[in-house]
């Protein structure tokens, strides 16, 4: 998928007709979605019976359960928060959906155009393709690439989509300006930036290209009020464009501003028990 | 068997042309293979010869293998018949094979050469034997013999052009002036031995058989008569031979390869034919260069052609002395600046 113009994406038209809440009500929490088929009609993401335990071989094979029996769905145009105390497995869950952590059991079905991909069992190359066009991930920290300027870091996903470099750079500049990153920093590699500056670069990189499914891990943790407001605005735009967002938002102000519902991660463990 | 006599007593007895028959047969087999695969370096079991490596041991073995009792042998070194190397090799075969020798290109049936091809066009009843120091044209770029053999086998000659590229990059033109690589019969790239590139075109479609012998490296290769020989080049830097601004100072020949001869230590110099036989023939026919001696002072040809062919080496050194042929003493080809390298001395004449 290489759609580059958010406003013109067909998904944005389809979504505005219905309120997210309505669709949410119609989608009951599923136990198991049949392989290769979305249970709720129109869901972007359907997680079912998802379990994961870390085995620490360096500590005599100690077992560290992370998630068990996780099940939920996400629809276009909605922003859903993962809730629960730290250590409940929220970040791990996001990473599993992104394919960064492997899955012991269960399914993570993601709609990719006309296809449905189970992240839990997909071949690595399928995951790469899924990430290239469908799933965006805004991590908590920027993984810095040596020598690459902030502007290029941000523009890169667009360039990967096939947008001409000049246009990609222009759009990256617009976005960094909007996030109040001082222009003198644009040409520098972000390695030496402050936490807040790095996070804004990271957000810009995560949001610049259109990805129908967006995963956000505390995108506003190190931001001041003004920049939090900018991020809220950006998330709202994504929602209007039909993007489904699943995120971890510790900041209550942000969470309440953008999230239609909260999925309590601690529930999953209890259901299994 | 020939017998050289010393004070009337039978002295040393040699097999015809020094080498034993088995060895000559082995060399002839290598030569036949070389002719069958033009430009391909055929390994052969080179023998120790009674002369040091670098003095033409490879050429001498090839000559010994092709020489018959009726052959007339000419030996040149840098184009001259009268340099030490040429005189010694000519003497060697007079002594060991008893063959007739000559300095006249037209009279010779076998010509062994170091670093030149005669100016007089060769005929199909002649064999030209080259002395080769380093037969592998890729050697200076690729030191591994296993690898260069592969490259020949697979016709991977890009590296040869790297050498020419380096020339142009450093000098603005292909500065290789001798041992200039050629492609033989559209297949093998070959080192033509350190002849000036001026002579390269003479190898192409030549009616004479051309044989190359490398004694130290134990390789023989060949260009059969009338074979296509192409000098490597670039489309935008085509192969060109040296051109000389003035004619030969002695015989006024143009379009021939000239040696620079230093006359004194005040910068005096002259350019004369590197091919001494060619130069003398022209002088004998009345051609005069600007520094040619006056007619009266011109020596008669050392001896009538034909008689000359039977001379033995002892006489040759005096009869063929440089001064006797209208050249300044000691100013033979070998005395030209750097002529020993085969090309250095010739660059002065390059425009």
């Amino acid at each position, binding site marked *: 998928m290489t759609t580059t113009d958010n406003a013109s994406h067909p998904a944005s038209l389809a979504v505005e007709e219905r309120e997210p809440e309505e669709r949410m009500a119609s989608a009951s929490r599923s136990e198991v979605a049949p392989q290769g088929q979305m249970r709720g009609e129109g869901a972007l993401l359907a997680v079912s019976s998802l379990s994961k335990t870390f085995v620490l071989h*360096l500590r005599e094979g100690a077992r560290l359960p992370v998630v068990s029996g996780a099940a939920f769905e996400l629809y276009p145009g909605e922003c859903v928060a993962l809730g629960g105390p730290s250590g409940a497995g929220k970040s791990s869950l996001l990473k599993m959906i992104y*394919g960064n952590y492997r899955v012991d059991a269960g399914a993570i079905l993601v709609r990719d155009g006309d296809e449905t991909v189970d992240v839990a069992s997909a071949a*690595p190359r399928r*995951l790469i393709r899924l990430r290239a066009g469908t799933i965006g991930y805004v991590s908590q920290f920027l993984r810095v690439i040596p020598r690459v300027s902030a502007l290029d870091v941000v523009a890169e996903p667009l360039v990967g989509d096939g947008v001409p470099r000049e246009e990609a750079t222009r759009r990256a500049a617009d976005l960094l300006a909007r996030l109040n990153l001082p222009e003198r920093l644009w040409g520098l590699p972000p390695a030496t930036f402050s936490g807040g500056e790095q996070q804004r670069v990271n957000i810009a990189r995560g949001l610049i290209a259109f990805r129908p499914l967006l995963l956000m891990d505390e995108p506003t943790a190190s931001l001041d009020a003004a920049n939090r407001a900018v991020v809220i605005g950006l998330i709202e735009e994504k929602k209007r464009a039909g993007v489904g967002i699943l995120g971890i938002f510790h900041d209550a102000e942000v969470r309440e501003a953008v999230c239609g519902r909260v999925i309590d991660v601690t529930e999953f463990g209890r259901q299994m028990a | 068997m020939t017998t050289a006599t010393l004070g009337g007593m039978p002295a040393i007895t040699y097999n015809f042309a020094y080498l034993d028959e088995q060895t000559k047969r082995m060399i002839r087999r290598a030569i036949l293979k070389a002719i069958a695969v033009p430009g391909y370096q055929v390994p052969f079991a080179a023998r120790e010869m009674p002369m040091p490596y670098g003095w033409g041991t490879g050429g001498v073995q090839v000559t010994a293998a092709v020489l018959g009792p009726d052959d007339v042998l000419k030996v040149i070194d840098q184009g001259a018949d009268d340099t030490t190397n040429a005189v010694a090799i000519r003497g060697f075969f007079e002594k060991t094979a008893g063959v007739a020798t000559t300095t006249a290109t037209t009279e010779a049936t076998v010509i062994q050469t170091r670093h030149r091809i005669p100016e007089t066009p060769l005929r199909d009843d002649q064999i030209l034997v080259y002395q080769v120091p380093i037969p592998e044209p890729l050697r200076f770029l690729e030191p591994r013999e296993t690898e260069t053999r592969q490259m020949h086998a697979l016709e*991977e000659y*890009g590296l040869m052009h*790297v050498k020419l590229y380096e020339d142009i990059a*450093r000098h603005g033109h292909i500065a290789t002036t001798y041992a200039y690589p050629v492609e033989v019969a559209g297949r093998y790239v070959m080192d033509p031995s350190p002849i000036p590139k001026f002579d390269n075109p003479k190898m192409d479609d030549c009616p004479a058989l051309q044989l190359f012998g490398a004694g130290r490296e134990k390789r023989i290769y060949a260009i059969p008569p009338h074979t296509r020989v192409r000098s490597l080049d670039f*489309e935008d*830097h085509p192969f060109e031979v040296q051109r000389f601004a003035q004619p030969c100072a002695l015989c006024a020949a143009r379009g021939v390869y000239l040696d620079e001869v230093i006359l004194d230590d005040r910068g005096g110099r002259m350019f004369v034919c590197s091919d001494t036989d060619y130069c003398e023939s022209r002088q004998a026919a009345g051609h005069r260069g600007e520094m040619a001696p006056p007619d009266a002072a011109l020596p008669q040809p050392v001896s009538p052609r034909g008689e000359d062919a039977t001379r033995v080496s002892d006489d040759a050194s005096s009869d063929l002395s440089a001064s006797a042929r209208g050249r300044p003493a000691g100013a033979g080809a070998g005395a030209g600046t750097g002529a020993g390298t085969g090309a250095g001395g010739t660059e002065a004449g390059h425009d």
Partner: protein
Amino acid sequence: MTEQPLLIAETLGKNYGARIGCRDVALEVYPGEVLAVVGESGSGKSTLLGLLSTELEPSAGRVSYRLRDGSLRDLATLGAAERRLLMRTDWGFVRQNPADGLRMAVSAGGNVGERLMAVGRRHYGDIRTEALDWLGRVEIAADRIDDDPRSFSGGMRQRLQIARNLVTRPRLVFMDEPTGGLDVSVQARLLDLVRSLVSEMGLAVIIVTHDLAVARLLSHRMVVMRQGRVIETGLTDQVLDDPREPYTQLLVSSVLAA
């Protein structure tokens, strides 16, 4: 994105007498994909690279490669001429020691131009123009074109080696510890360069490295080797962030955080 693999290794093994170089390796590399082979010294990763690039002859198994005409060929059935042509046109090999991959006595321009001349290019001006373009792409100043690599720094030599390999626009490049022995800052520059060239040219790369940071930065997928076997494979970030095998966990936990 093409879904047909460019290179396929099946049950690939190499014994050095009784010692096992590598055993039972199966992997696929797709066009435009960077595959990292990681492991400690002696894990068999260099042997594997040798086998994949046909520099070593396998004791077992085979390597197949999709030629430009689309046909998949067992590399063992290619003649020497075909294989060597492949190696200097469709493949590249960037070696750890630039002296092994460059002609140290030949100018930078000649080093880059060699492959062009090897495929029959005979126009000096064109060859030089292309060499200059490539020197620029690997950030070597144009006025160094006639200098030989002996006068270059380690990083420059390595960049020159890359240019020399990429000038024929290969589809697959083998890299053996390309940043080994370089200063950290020089490494970063080289990695950045490789990264951008790989994505611009859509190169497939098989890179052997013991440096997990290099693997993370450059590769899409990763193969972890130990004692001659592949013990873990997956997406690079998956293997590094959620390693499964005890050995991989040890490897990942042994990296010093900067």
